[in-house]
């Protein structure tokens, strides 16, 4: 159920990206800091509210991004891209909003309330505000939510493919879906307890969570009422709806691409430039910029020069030490840099005898790699607060983070050698450990990215004295081909985490239990059970406890060594604030809250 999201991640793995936010950048709240409330809304409780702040009009604002808008509907597998997710939160309604502390808050600009009515079975009631309308005046609510439910779960196939080209994530847990006559109240009953219900119909769940104006689909397809189209059967209406869903909302077409948010797209040149203007029908506090021009520029150095040369006031390039230093040195600019949701890690291929049969080798590598040194040299130039990562499931910025890798990956050559010798490995004449026919020598596959080349060189340099030979096997197509096929000894790549915790499960569960993205073939029944349990635990503290338990077990098995968080990065002219970056929405995530001082 998570596959689609899981893979978006992979697509991103080369590039950085991630999440972040500078002190309640969007919301009414102040700086929440790095710790969030451990109990943001356990089942039956109240979630924290979010409302867009009242800010002065700042006129035109322009920004350079690595990619620009491509398609209006980001829910289909064919269209789904990070670039679309930069923009859609500015116009797509959503019951929950992901704030700068990576917590999901009820978006009070859209919702009167989201209430869990019962826990067994789990029943959630969504009450939309009566003011919430699309830019043509039609109400937001029942129909729009139903359309995503239909798209995600319809069993109808065409040429063998799911006809809506959408992943079922979460919506397949729905047992009942009821609307009030005015369409403003929606009551959803779940088949089994589902902990990540907050991610549904929400931008936080990147692929498949963007609400669309279902009434436009009705008008264009002649379907009188989309909510009468069955989710479990094949009818001509389903096919017509799917056809419009997958083709009607591609690229940008203002006639069908409505907004129910603070901004709407005025014009877009696919992946080059998009111009957003205030939505005249927006009912809550209007956004600061009257017009936002976003331009794509692929080269991060070119972006920095644009900023320093004052051609654009805000940029969101890929994080790079040289880039960050230049901006800091130039004086008049603010740099936002914070560890984000994306994390780099080294996976050992457990399908290969060298690693499967020799846990001591995995632990020895984990010992001789110097994670602090890697962070110092590759990450601290961007974010001076960066630290080695100590958890694969919970982000250091999130509540409940525990470091399970303290003392691991400290470049401890003696410890590494001891592990090897205790297990019967002997140093060969070439200075590399050997045991029987096997040598402690392996290749690290990765996509050709400077940072990854350097990581491998640093690992190789610090493990050489420990008698472990690490070779660089970078290839341009590694992430597309070798990684999913399991063609590697060890792999260096990144995953994207999320407050929607079940997103990570397919990366670490056994293949047989749904670990579709478990490329290193790690398998531990204890981890499978813990992860499955965590996904049905509605009580937040309990859930975090289970996740920590799972991570502890994984740290003991050492199939995957976490290295560091990639840095969320944005720079801006000092006059603009608050400028930050997070996975969903990129640097535009809080564009409505931008202010400008002279």
């Amino acid at each position: 159920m998570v596959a689609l999201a899981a893979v978006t991640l992979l697509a991103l793995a080369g590039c950085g990206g991630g999440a972040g936010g500078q002190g309640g950048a969007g919301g009414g709240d102040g700086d929440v800091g790095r710790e969030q409330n451990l109990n943001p809304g356990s089942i039956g409780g109240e979630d924290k509210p979010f409302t867009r702040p009242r800010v002065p009009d700042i006129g035109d604002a322009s920004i350079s991004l690595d990619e620009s808008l491509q398609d209006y509907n980001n829910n289909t597998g064919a269209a789904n891209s990070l670039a679309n997710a930069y923009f859609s939160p500015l116009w797509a309604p959503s019951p929950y909003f992901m704030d700068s502390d990576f917590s999901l808050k009820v978006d009070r600009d859209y919702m009167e309330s989201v209430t869990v009515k019962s826990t067994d079975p789990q029943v959630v009631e969504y009450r939309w505000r009566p003011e919430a309308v699309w830019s043509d005046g039609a109400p937001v609510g029942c129909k729009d939510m139903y359309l995503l439910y239909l798209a995600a779960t319809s069993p109808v196939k065409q040429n063998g493919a799911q006809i809506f080209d959408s992943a079922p994530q979460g919506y397949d847990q729905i047992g009942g879906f009821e609307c009030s006559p005015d369409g403003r109240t929606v009551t959803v009953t779940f088949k089994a307890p589902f902990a990540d219900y907050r991610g549904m119909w929400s931008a936080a769940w990147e692929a498949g969570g963007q609400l669309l104006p279902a009434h436009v689909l009705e008008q264009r397809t002649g379907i009188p009422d989309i909510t009468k189209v069955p989710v479990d059967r094949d009818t001509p209406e389903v096919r017509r709806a799917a056809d419009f869903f997958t083709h009607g909302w591609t690229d940008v077409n203002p006639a069908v691409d409505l907004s129910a948010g603070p901004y709407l797209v005025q014009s877009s040149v696919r992946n080059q430039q998009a111009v957003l203007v205030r939505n005249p029908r927006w009912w809550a506090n209007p956004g600061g910029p009257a017009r936002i021009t976003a331009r794509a520029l692929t080269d991060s150095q070119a972006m920095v020069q644009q900023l320093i040369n004052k051609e654009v006031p805000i940029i969101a390039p890929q994080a790079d030490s040289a880039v960050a230093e230049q901006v800091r040195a130039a004086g008049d600019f603010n740099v936002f840099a914070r560890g984000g949701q994306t994390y780099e890690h080294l996976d050992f291929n457990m399908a290969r005898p060298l690693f499967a049969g020799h846990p001591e080798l995995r632990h020895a590598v984990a010992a001789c790699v110097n994670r602090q040194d890697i962070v110092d040299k590759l990450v601290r130039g961007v974010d001076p607060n960066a630290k080695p990562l100590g958890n694969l499931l919970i982000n250091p910025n999130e509540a409940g983070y525990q470091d399970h890798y303290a003392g691991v990956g400290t470049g401890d050559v003696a410890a590494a050698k001891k592990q090897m010798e205790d297990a019967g490995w002997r140093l060969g004449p070439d200075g590399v450990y050997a045991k029987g026919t096997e040598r402690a020598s392996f290749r690290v596959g990765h996509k050709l990215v400077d940072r990854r080349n350097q990581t491998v060189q640093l690992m190789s340099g610090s493990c050489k004295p420990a008698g472990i030979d690490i070779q660089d096997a970078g290839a341009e197509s590694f992430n597309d081909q070798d990684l999913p096929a399991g063609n590697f000894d060890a792999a260096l790549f990144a995953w994207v985490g999320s407050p929607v915790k079940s997103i990570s499960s397919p990366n670490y569960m056994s293949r047989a239990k749904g670990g579709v993205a478990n490329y290193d073939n790690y398998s531990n029944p204890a981890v499978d059970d813990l992860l499955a349990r965590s996904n049905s635990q509605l009580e937040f503290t309990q859930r975090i406890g289970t996740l920590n338990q799972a991570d502890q077990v994984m740290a003991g098995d050492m199939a995957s060594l976490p290295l560091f968080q990639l840095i969320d990065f944005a720079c801006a002219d000092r006059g603009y604030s608050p400028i930050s970056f997070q996975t969903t929405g990129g640097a535009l995530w809080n564009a409505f809250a931008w202010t400008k001082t002279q």
Partner: protein
Amino acid sequence: MIRYVLRRVLIAVPVLLCASVLTFTLTTMMGDPLAEWKAQRARAPEEVASQYHRIGWDRSPVERYVGWAEGFVTGDWGHTIIPGDGDVAVRPEIFRALGVTLKLVLVAEVLALLIGVAIGVVGAVRQYSRFDYAATGVAFVMFSMPLFCIAVILKAGGITLNNGLEDAGLGRWIVTAGPPPGGFGGGGVGHLLYQYSGAYLLPVLSLIAVQFALYSRFQRASMLDALNADYVRTARAKGLTPARVVVRHALRNGLIPVVTVFALDLGVLLGGAVITETVFGWRGMGLLIVQNIEHKEPWMVQGWMMVTAVVIVAFNLLADVVYAYLDPRIRLG
């Protein structure tokens, strides 16, 4: 003359035909356009099959080629086909990019030609003078430099200059990346000129830097040949003024090779000043091809290579015709 041109055009046709096969082979060799899409997640075999059917990859390469060629001739050059790339029509996209590149390259090439010819002529007339040595030295340094370094250095220089201008209260003139987001306009002719020059200055300079060096060397060499030729000696012997000899006799003939090289280069550069466009963020032909090769978008790459081939062949033709026009002896041969 018309017969000559016709003959050349007829030779160009089979070359372009072969070029279409060659480019198609190259495009096919880029690999499976769906490789990345397939790697994104586990997909049902039927779904994969339907995608291959959608993009037409269930047909043999020969059928695809024929289909493409028919489309190309009738003006339908195909669309982008990779999931996530949308459904962008190839022809308008290429012509848009060609327009961007054309403006950039034309300005740069014409300026480079003028500067190069002037330097070359003076260098030849005053061979082994200090000027000649200096010009030779500069030319050699210029075409010994990687273009991207020139571009990177120019950019850093542009920003420094801007800082200086701003301190002097003159505003920031030079733009480092692409045409301004809002487009040109919003002011009088003076303002427009200011905007255009600011946006074009750096990329144009970076193109000129290499090209003028090339032209000056060609011009110098051909000028020396011309100055040594019998007809120039005759003209001198007749007692014509040196200026008249240089301009009317030597220059006219000395220009022939340079003009030919100019036409050839223009054709090649229209195929994208890849480096210049990358560094300065101009979305012309160069950036278009680099990005589409990265995505392995077959019809875009194919269409691009064909357009470039046509442009290059056309400019080669033009070069030959100009040559034949300026030097009537060619037509006899």
